[in-house]
């Protein structure tokens, strides 16, 4: 009976996770295909250093250490899930205990990590809700992003507490020599809870042990589903996102190939302006108006964002009170993808234009024109998301498709066109500095 219930719950969770993953994957693949340059080894190295090794977290040591507790705790304690899954499906109890001392070592490590995760969650909850850290309270941190962050932390507190209480009651049952509860494992943390449950009867203990076992695993199932809807998706997408992140120097911006073709036609008097481009890949438009015009890597970046706000807190425009927030650029991109995905689902997978776009309905021109392209945001991002490239692609649309920009920018363009310099000086005066 319990095994059937367990399998049903597992299936429900798996169903929703798969469904949601397909939705997210489809949305990401709405983006343009791009050709990947560079060495695969460099990409793996980046992933190992930045995602697996948390390399960029350590510019802020306290947050980095707390995050490391949760990260390592999450990864290691998941080994425990294997045992829970086997026990749940086959009705066994602590099936891996045949490992003997290894098992004791594992359980002891899980317990210590669980305690560290609890500490980190409490610190993080305090940082979000008591200590006034500016990046957690900005314009884009509306009610859902704030609740999302707190919900995850609170869920982890419950999951870890259930885990420790489960081990404590199991241990007490082992001591009492109750059937089914063979004396296995080592419990350095939960043994501290023993005084609390010493007087409890055998049936109460069995109830608590079973209840926390179920609570722990059901909460994990729920959590698995929840993260796919949440900023917490970064725990998975951080890996592909760093793998596919830019290998060139941060200062490099891509040269639009479609523009290269146009320029070559303009500069080459013998070119046939009516000849089709060799690969037939004339883009619908220059630059990006909506998420369809961004690359799939840029869109994956939006789903990888965990809204930590390091980009925004380092952004010179944001620090001086401008509207621009690189984090909001990523959140807007994701929210627009979600919106488009829902419209597509409602129309049997077909896109029906809703008359909206990423520019205008989500990101305003004022935000875009505040960027100094300084790369503080890309430097700050712990998972190598690149808001700057999205900003530039949106600017490209404004300029190349709509000729929209501040007047002084148009003057600068005209000067470059006419004089080869952003100011109105003639080329003949270029070498005049020699006479200064």
């Amino acid at each position, binding site marked *: 009976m319990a095994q059937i219930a367990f399998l049903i719950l597992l299936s429900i969770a798996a169903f929703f996770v798969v469904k949601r993953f397909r939705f997210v994957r489809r949305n990401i693949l709405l983006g343009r295909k791009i050709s990947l340059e560079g060495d695969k080894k460099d990409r793996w190295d980046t992933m190992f250093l930045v995602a697996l090794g948390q390399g960029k977290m350590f510019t802020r040591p306290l947050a980095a250490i707390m995050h490391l507790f949760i990260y390592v705790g999450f990864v290691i304690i998941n080994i425990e899930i294997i045992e829970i899954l086997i026990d749940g499906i086959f009705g066994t109890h602590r099936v891996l205990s045949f490992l003997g001392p290894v098992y004791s070592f594992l359980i002891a490590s899980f317990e210590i990590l669980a305690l560290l995760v609890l500490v980190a969650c409490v610190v993080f909850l305090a940082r979000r809700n008591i200590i006034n850290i500016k990046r957690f309270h900005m314009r884009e941190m509306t009610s859902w992003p704030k609740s999302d962050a707190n919900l995850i932390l609170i869920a982890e507190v419950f999951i870890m507490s259930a885990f420790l209480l489960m081990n404590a009651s199991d241990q007490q049952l082992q001591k009492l020599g109750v059937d089914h509860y063979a004396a296995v494992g080592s419990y350095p943390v939960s043994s501290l809870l023993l005084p609390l449950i010493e007087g409890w009867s055998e049936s109460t203990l069995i109830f608590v042990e079973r209840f926390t076992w179920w609570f722990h695993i059901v909460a994990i199932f729920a959590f698995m589903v929840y993260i796919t809807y949440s900023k917490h998706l970064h725990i998975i997408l951080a890996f592909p996102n760093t793998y596919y992140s830019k290998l060139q120097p941060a200062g490099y911006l891509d040269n639009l190939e479609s523009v*290269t073709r146009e320029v070559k036609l303009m500069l080459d008097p013998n070119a046939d302006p009516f000849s089709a481009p060799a690969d037939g890949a004339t883009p619908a438009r220059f630059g990006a108006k909506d998420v369809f015009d961004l690359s799939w890597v840029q869109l994956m970046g939006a789903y990888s964002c965990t809204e930590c706000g390091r980009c925004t807190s380092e952004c*010179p425009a944001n620090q001086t009170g401008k509207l621009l927030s690189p984090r909001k650029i990523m959140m807007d991109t994701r929210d627009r993808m979600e919106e488009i995905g829902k419209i597509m689902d409602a129309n049997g997978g077909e896109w029906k234009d809703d008359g909206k776009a990423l520019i205008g309905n989500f990101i305003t021109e004022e935000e875009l024109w505040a960027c100094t392209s300084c790369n503080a945001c890309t430097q700050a991002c712990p998972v190598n998301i690149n808001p700057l490239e999205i900003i530039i692609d949106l600017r490209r649309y404004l*300029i190349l498709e709509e000729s929209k920009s501040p007047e002084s920018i148009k003057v600068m363009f005209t000067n470059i066109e006419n004089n080869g310099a952003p100011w109105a000086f003639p080329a003949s005066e270029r070498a005049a500095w020699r006479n200064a």
Partner: protein
Amino acid sequence: MNQQLQVRTMAEFMASGESPEILFWVGCAGSFDDRAKKITASIAKILHHCQISFAILGEEESCTGDPAKRAGNELLFQMMAMQNIQVLNAYEVKKIVTGCPHCFNTIKNEYPQLGGSYDVVHHSELINSLIREGRIQLKDGGEFQGKKITFHDPCYLGRGNNVYEAPRELLSELDADLVEMKRSRAKGLCCGAGGAQMFKEAEPGNKEVNIERTEDALETKASVIATGCPFCNTMMTDGIKHFEKEAEVVVKDIAELIAGQLNS
């Protein structure tokens, strides 16, 4: 100073059947901005001091297209890039030194795909390597001995291209007390000019970026703010004026600091 006048163009080299060791890409600010022209002259002076044969493009140089590209005008950028590449390739240029991190970044990183591959260095890298090679002799007991100097990292030199140490190493030659701002190197704050901001008013906010950055610099109590970018120079100089600190603090390019101390 007369020496500086003898800077020849690529065309002049070509006419006399010679070719220079290196092309000095002056940049628009270095050519037209009165303050930046002094930086250009300083770089030329250092190159002369080291007896390096170098040329400029003069009238044949054009904007690299950086501000157009970063403002979103990819078409104008690539037109400028291809014209410049035509000129550079026609002169068979191999090595380029730039006086501006924006030109440096664009030519080094964005031109190769468009057919222009050169060995490009920023002037801080070139000057620093000349010092390491012993080709630059500085006066003993120069005027900066014991003075506090702080270095403002230009975004397109530092974060953009990971050049953090060259300017600091060459500054250490001045026997000055090199002090860091609270935000420096990879965490350095922008001066506010990049991404075509130089050519427009800032968006509405509560402060100008250059004021925020000048505050960082003033906090160090340095009497010299060194930088390696003509645009950063303008922004920081304006910041110093804003705080009416012109009497106590000067903004200097690293090339000017070295050129002023040459032992010749």
